[in-house]
């Protein structure tokens, strides 16, 4: 019986030992904090955007040539842009929150399906943030040299 158990563990290769559990728990704790702060920031951005969108456009128009691009917008377009940005941000950080939630559930209930769901959420979070980072880098390079 004991040998059979060791064979099964040997086939699995990587174990969720105590050290791994501590690190998963630590990562889950911090990702939960980060995602909740980002949800609150998204909410505040949405409130400020909806309440002061039109006022912000008119204020930017008065600031001069640097902000002339905002002269093309009216308040409604700015509000739509803010809603889209907030929606995308909230969706990205939902995946981080889901990672935290699923990993904690997996550690408590010893459920491999939850562990896999949490890891999948973290994978999606990294894919989306990396794609945005690449787009940002390309934009910065373009602004710098062209």
């Amino acid at each position, binding site marked *: *019986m*004991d040998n059979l*158990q060791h064979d099964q*563990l040997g086939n*699995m*290769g*990587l*174990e*969720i*030992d105590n*050290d*791994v559990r501590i*690190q*998963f728990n*630590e*990562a889950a704790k*911090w*990702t939960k*904090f*980060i995602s909740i*702060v980002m949800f609150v920031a998204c909410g505040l951005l949405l409130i400020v955007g909806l309440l002061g969108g039109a006022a912000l456009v008119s204020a930017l128009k008065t600031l001069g040539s640097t902000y002339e691009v905002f002269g093309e917008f009216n308040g409604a377009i700015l509000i739509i842009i803010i809603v889209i940005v907030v929606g995308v941000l909230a969706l990205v950080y939902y995946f981080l929150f889901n990672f935290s939630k699923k990993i904690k559930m*997996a*550690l408590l209930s*010893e*459920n*491999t399906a939850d*562990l*896999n769901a949490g*890891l*999948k959420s*973290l*994978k999606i979070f*990294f*894919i989306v*943030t*990396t794609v945005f*980072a*690449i787009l*940002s*880098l390309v934009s*910065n*390079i373009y602004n*710098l040299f062209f």
Partner: protein
Amino acid sequence: MENIQDNTIFDLAIDEEGKSHISSIAQWANISAIVGFAGIGISIIGVVIGLMRVSENSAAAAGSGVFGLFISTAIALLLNITLINAAINLKKGIDQTDQGHFSLGLTKLAMYFKILGIITIIVLVIVTLILLVVALVGAGRSTF
């Protein structure tokens, strides 16, 4: 009875699906860190070009620009070095089925999120202080 207890301890395991997800996480974290390093380089070039234009007019602006660049570069380097270490160790852990590398990779990943969390706290404190100062200045103006 003892065997049953031992089995429940090891109920949580990394199966093939989990390995595949961790491998993808390592791959994308690696790309993210490399993009981050490239971003640091572009930021340095941008600030240097900006300083060359500004420094003739204002030494104070140039000084604050260099200070800002130094702080942001240090934070970005710390974050991206931690992330690339996490990615390398996780990949080694999965590819070579090495528990030590896997554990180290997870430690680095947890550290990455811890640094991000601490940066978030610092930003929150700064934003709160700015809002307090703005509110106090506003209240002071309305009083006088």
